[in-house]
């Protein structure tokens, strides 16, 4: 055949080192794509995920657990239907009945058409939020099944190009927005100037590439480009706590779109870049900015992607802030945040990450009127922007529509501020705020803590260790 069918973008075959750019990907023919997809399926069939490929009884009770189905209750959006598309390939190649009597057991060949349909299902109709799994009557990890689907698609080189481009940026330039080290330094400089003025303290610093600091602080590139107040708030709290910290100018990105792309090899590569940066800078600990999937990636998946235990702790800034508060390194005055605040729980941080209480402990001391959404914590609804949805413009309308349930949750609290420890979620919530006319402000948890800082308790900043 030899006809070009998929770009092979951001697949292991095309990484080939640190300097891959999206433009360098070569077209692949259908046969090699199908073989790669089957190979990815084979790997999944002999992993723990296979338990879940065998467990679904298609009871159909999962519909109302899914924000996408709630917004558009068609069978295609049922978690069980979505999972069955992935499972059908498993049955065809890895069960006896599927090999002998495929049409009787819903087993399907991996074909170009079937893969195109799978792309729409696993990328366009699922954010991998895991809410259906946690509520499954069987106990099926639907999120794991959908990620197997993404791995199959990724191996075949059919990952949506917009998502792929983000992974390509991370591989080529160290961050998803291809921000140059020079831009990072310049942004840090002007944020620092503003912060000095605001805190009336000329000793405030935002160190970049400083060796021997205690902490390497990873940030979301959105903080550099669009939300500098987030970085400023973190810098302000670090200063108040007398923390020894630095950001990196190249591998500073807390995100890892390899997770969303179902591309474990790229995800491992991105993880290693950051770990090597931490090693190079000689820090004791890596602290992750507020990012749901960044936390899941670096805290939980990263060690398994790289098949090695980390040599230094990796924690969320939320955990560090709680530690500051408990050890009295900082003090918060909740009367500085009088407006009612509610909290959106990012799926990857809470449902997949287990970081459930730290953000609540911060808000309880930093704001006067904190109210929970209903439901919340591991039962919270996805905002609709997860799973890389924000980077896939082709599904934009569905993404906004699927956020309706989240908008309803927010409105019901009567809150004026929605705090969320995730910049991805914040982007989506900002759009939901406009579309559904919620009249709220979206802030990070650290921004609220910074607002509440009792400056009289500020420590003198420590220099290099």
């Amino acid at each position, binding site marked *: 055949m030899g006809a070009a069918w998929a770009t092979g973008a951001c697949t292991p075959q095309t990484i080939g080192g640190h300097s891959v750019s999206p433009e360098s990907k070569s077209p692949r023919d259908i046969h090699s794509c199908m073989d790669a997809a089957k190979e990815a399926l084979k790997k999944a069939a002999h992993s723990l995920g296979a338990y879940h490929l*065998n467990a*679904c009884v298609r009871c159909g009770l999962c519909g109302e657990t899914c924000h996408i189905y709630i917004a558009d209750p068609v069978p295609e959006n049922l978690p069980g239907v979505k999972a069955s598309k992935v499972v059908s390939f498993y049955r065809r190649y890895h069960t006896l009945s599927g090999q002998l009597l495929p049409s009787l057991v819903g087993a399907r060949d991996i074909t170009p058409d079937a893969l195109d349909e799978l792309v729409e299902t696993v990328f366009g109709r699922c954010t991998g939020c895991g809410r259906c799994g946690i509520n499954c009557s*069987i106990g099926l990890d639907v999120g794991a099944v959908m990620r197997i689907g993404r791995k199959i698609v990724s191996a075949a080189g059919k990952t949506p190009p917009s998502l792929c481009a983000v992974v390509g940026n991370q591989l080529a330039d160290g961050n998803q927005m291809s921000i140059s080290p020079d831009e990072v330094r310049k942004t840090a400089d002007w944020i620092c100037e503003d912060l000095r003025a605001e805190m009336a303290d000329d000793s405030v610093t935002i160190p970049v590439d400083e060796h021997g600091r205690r902490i390497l602080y990873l940030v979301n590139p959105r903080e550099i480009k669009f939300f500098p107040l987030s970085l400023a708030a973190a810098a302000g709290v670090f200063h108040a706590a007398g923390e020894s910290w630095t950001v990196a100018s190249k591998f500073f990105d807390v995100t890892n779109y390899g997770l969303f792309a179902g591309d474990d090899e790229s995800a491992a590569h991105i993880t290693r870049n950051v770990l090597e940066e931490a090693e190079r800078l000689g820090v004791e600990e890596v602290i992750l900015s507020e990012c749901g999937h960044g936390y899941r990636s670096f805290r939980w998946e990263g060690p398994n992607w790289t098949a090695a235990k980390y040599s230094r702790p990796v924690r969320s800034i939320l955990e560090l802030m709680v530690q500051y508060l408990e050890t009295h390194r900082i003090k918060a005055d909740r009367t500085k945040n009088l407006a009612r605040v509610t909290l959106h729980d990012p799926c990857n941080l809470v449902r997949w990450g*287990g970081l459930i209480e730290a953000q609540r402990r911060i808000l309880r001391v930093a704001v006067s009127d904190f109210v929970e959404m209903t439901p919340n914590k591991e039962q919270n609804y996805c905002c609709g922007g997860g799973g890389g949805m924000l980077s896939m413009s082709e599904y934009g309308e569905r993404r906004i529509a699927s956020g309706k349930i989240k908008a309803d949750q927010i409105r019901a609290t009567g809150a004026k501020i929605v705090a969320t420890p995730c910049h991805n979620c914040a982007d989506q919530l900002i759009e939901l705020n406009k579309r559904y006319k919620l009249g709220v402000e979206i802030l990070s948890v650290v921004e609220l803590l910074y607002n509440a800082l009792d400056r009289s308790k500020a420590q003198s900043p420590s220099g290099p260790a």
Partner: protein
Amino acid sequence: MQGFERLAATLCFGWAVIFLLVQYMAARGAAVKDYSTPAGSPLRGMIYAFTTGMLPAHKETVRKHPVKFLIGVTMHGGALFSILVALLLIAFPGMGSIYPPVTIPFLAVCAACGVYLFIRRVFSANLRAMSNFDDYFAAVATAGFIAAAALHEYGTIGTPAFLLISSGLFLYLPLGKLRHALFFFVARADYGRRLGYRGVYPADNRGA
């Protein structure tokens, strides 16, 4: 008497157990080491997954669909009881009915639940969208098997016939949807273990 039927049922049950175990081992693959640092207890996560985590307060699907859930649980109770009856008949050839005044109505209700689940699958557009022949066949086979157990308790069907019907079910069990008889436990344990490791389970949140 019953020699052939008992042998067939024994062999078919053995086939089901062995083939399920083979599938389990294939799915399990090589031992998987988790390199991340735990934040909770895998054991507590598993215990939660099989206990509190299944209660309506903790599981939205159960809370929102209590009747459907109860019907499903009842049908499965009947299926397990019928399998137990078959195994007892294999082990104790002379055994007759267990306790018809209780078992017959119980199994009749369970079989009716099975029939309801089949009808629901036929008439629900959502269920049809995710169903294949195997799903319908499994529903009919299970309801039929439970009904056969009820009829055996009643005396309408003799032990040889019930053992042959059981043989058919055991033969089919690991090949299609019914293999969830094993993978329900395995998948739930795996999910509970992983979420326990990450500190998500046990969840104290009732979510409502």
